[in-house]
């Protein structure tokens, strides 16, 4: 199958064109040997089925980061390149185009965001540009699908560039091209642009960011809570519970298999959070307790990503992040980590040095709980009001800051500085947003459900073999004296290696006080990453650094647990 590569600078609407060209079947995969993710899909080109690959955005073929290295590597495998360029930023974008024309690969140029260029008074002579570059140039507006048909029909006319130039003279050549094809008649500062500037000036930007964070938290909680209360809980309580009760009767309301599938009956009924059977708690936790929050979180996050706000947030928090040995852009992996630590840890690839990645991943594994865990904490601790939640999140935030400062002081080396494009604000294209949301939710279901079930299964086996009692006896001094928790809580710590959401669920039948709930939630978040995150971290950091990271995790968990136990009443 022929491969068509979509290449271009970041933030030029490449993904929107990708989502316009491809059908429903879209796959996200890792480039071999790296954690750099790319998406591919398929389209029909006449009678031929071709593969479309959305190559990670790159400014140049002289790579400056891991993601750009991958982009260059992929170029070797492509049969045709669709070079997507931003018509409002012709000069900068042509830098990549000219480099592409030197490679012996057929190229077609999609002159995207063409409508906006027209609106803002940038006039580009497309025919002339086509003649100079020697390859087809198609004006497009991916958001409204204008020009996409023409782009598809012209793909077969893609050809190797005929433009000759010396590498040293590239910017000079670009300057000449731009001068001869582009006329700027009048340049408006649009309202959006002014708004854009307001969100990066410190005076206005910080208050806007704070308000935005508050709104985001509120929206996620609103969507999550209501989906649970009005959709998922009723489905489980009204439809699934009666079915399970019937099954329970058939199996004689007890016995080994019954306890594994249905779990323990509480007052003769199924309690989805406490029964701990594969078909009850094992399904309820991922689908009814966590999925609604995952949906809400990724909906909001995808919107933020596609609107272009995240780099601005990075600029605003840059000087704070510097104290933690990171730079502003590391706020992006941290926010992704709030959804799930696995993609969060992978996203640290945008940071250039090993030191930054070590600090970033360690901080995330310790103090950034994932949405699955958050959903369960909100459900459990939130029952007794906001105080408990504020204590849990406040503690984790303080740990995040202090630990970052300490690591920055102790670890050798310096962290590089922020250097990033701040893209223009764009209204996200709904289709591309939905596709991304769907891919993330599918990923969650595929990854989480088997592990949750495995976790529930292991809990049952541990209990029936009295392993938990054995370990509880053994660890009781630490768990009770140091953390002030009942000795049975150790079972949650064991399961937490597998899934943190199941682990929090295991606290439910223990009837903990608010103080104990807060301590248990905090140490469950901190002490160790779940197995999926652990695997990614080992791959990214290597065994030696991972051991260092684990040591920091355990040490800080014990310290924080003791302090909370002493301070709280």
């Amino acid at each position, binding site marked *: 199958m022929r491969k068509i590569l979509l290449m271009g600078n970041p933030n030029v609407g490449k993904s929107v064109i990708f989502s316009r060209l491809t059908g429903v079947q879209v796959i996200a995969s890792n480039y071999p040997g790296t954690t750099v993710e790319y998406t591919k899909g398929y389209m029909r080109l006449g009678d031929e089925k071709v593969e479309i690959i959305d190559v990670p955005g790159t400014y140049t073929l*002289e790579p400056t980061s891991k993601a750009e290295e991958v982009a260059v590597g992929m170029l070797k495998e492509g049969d045709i390149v669709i070079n997507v360029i931003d018509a409002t*930023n012709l000069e900068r974008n042509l*830098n990549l185009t000219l480099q592409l024309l030197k490679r012996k690969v057929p190229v077609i140029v999609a002159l995207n965001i063409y409508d906006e260029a027209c609106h803002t008074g940038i006039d580009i002579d497309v025919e002339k540009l086509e003649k100079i570059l020697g390859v087809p140039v198609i004006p497009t507006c991916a958001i409204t699908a204008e020009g996409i048909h023409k782009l598809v029909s012209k793909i077969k006319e893609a050809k190797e560039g005929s433009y000759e130039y010396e590498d040293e003279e590239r910017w000079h050549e670009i300057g000449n091209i731009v001068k001869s094809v582009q006329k700027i008649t009048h340049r408006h500062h649009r309202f959006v642009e002014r708004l854009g500037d307001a969100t990066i000036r410190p005076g206005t930007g910080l208050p806007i960011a704070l308000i935005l964070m508050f709104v985001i938290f509120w929206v996620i909680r609103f969507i999550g809570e209501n989906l649970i209360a009005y959709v998922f809980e009723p489905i489980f309580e009204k439809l699934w519970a009666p079915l399970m009760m019937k099954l329970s009767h058939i199996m004689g309301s007890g016995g080994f298999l019954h306890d594994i599938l249905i779990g323990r009956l509480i007052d003769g009924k199924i309690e989805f959070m406490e029964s701990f059977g594969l078909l009850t708690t094992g399904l309820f936790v991922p689908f009814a307790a966590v999925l609604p929050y995952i949906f809400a979180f990724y909906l909001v996050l995808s919107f933020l990503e596609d609107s272009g706000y995240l780099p601005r947030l990075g600029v605003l928090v*840059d000087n704070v992040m510097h104290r933690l040995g990171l730079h502003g852009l590391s706020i992006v992996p941290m926010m992704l980590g709030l959804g799930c630590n696995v993609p969060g840890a992978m996203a640290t690839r945008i940071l250039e040095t090993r030191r930054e990645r070590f600090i970033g991943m360690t901080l995330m594994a310790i103090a950034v709980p994932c949405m699955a865990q958050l959903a369960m904490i909100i459900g459990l601790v939130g029952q007794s009001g906001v105080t408990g939640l504020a204590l849990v999140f406040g503690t984790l935030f303080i740990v995040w800051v202090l630990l970052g400062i300490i690591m920055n002081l102790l670890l050798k080396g310096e962290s590089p500085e922020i*250097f990033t494009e701040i*893209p223009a604000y764009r209204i996200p294209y709904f289709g591309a947003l939905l596709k991304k949301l769907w891919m993330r939710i599918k990923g969650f279901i595929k990854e989480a459900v088997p592990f949750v079930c495995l976790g529930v299964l292991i809990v049952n086996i541990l209990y029936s073999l009295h392993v938990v009692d054995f370990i509880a006896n053994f660890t009781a001094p630490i768990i009770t004296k140091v953390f002030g928790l009942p000795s049975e809580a150790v079972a949650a710590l064991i399961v937490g290696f597998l899934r943190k959401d199941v682990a929090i669920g295991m606290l439910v039948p223990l009837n903990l006080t608010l103080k104990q709930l807060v301590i248990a939630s905090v140490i469950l978040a901190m002490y160790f990453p779940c197995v999926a995150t652990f695997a990614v971290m080992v791959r990214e950091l290597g065994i030696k650094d991972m051991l260092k990271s684990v040591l920091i995790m355990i040490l800080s968990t014990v310290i924080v647990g003791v302090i909370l136990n002493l301070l709280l009443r």
Partner: protein
Amino acid sequence: MKEMDLTQVESNTKGIVAKILGGRRMMKKLETLGIRIGCELEKVSSHIMRGPVVVRVGNTRAAIGYGMAKKIIIEQEKNVE
């Protein structure tokens, strides 16, 4: 004409990049967003406590860390509106 580094330039003023006091790596990095010797840029804002400087080059806006901005020398006309 006066020369100063990018952190000293006032917000909302324009200037020409006269020198970049950095190695090849830094030059290449800056070049990806179109910042190179001889180009015109406008400073949009700066942040307190050695925060990043935001500039506009052509139609691109870029954030540049404080230390990096210190190495970009700008030449300004005396009277700019």
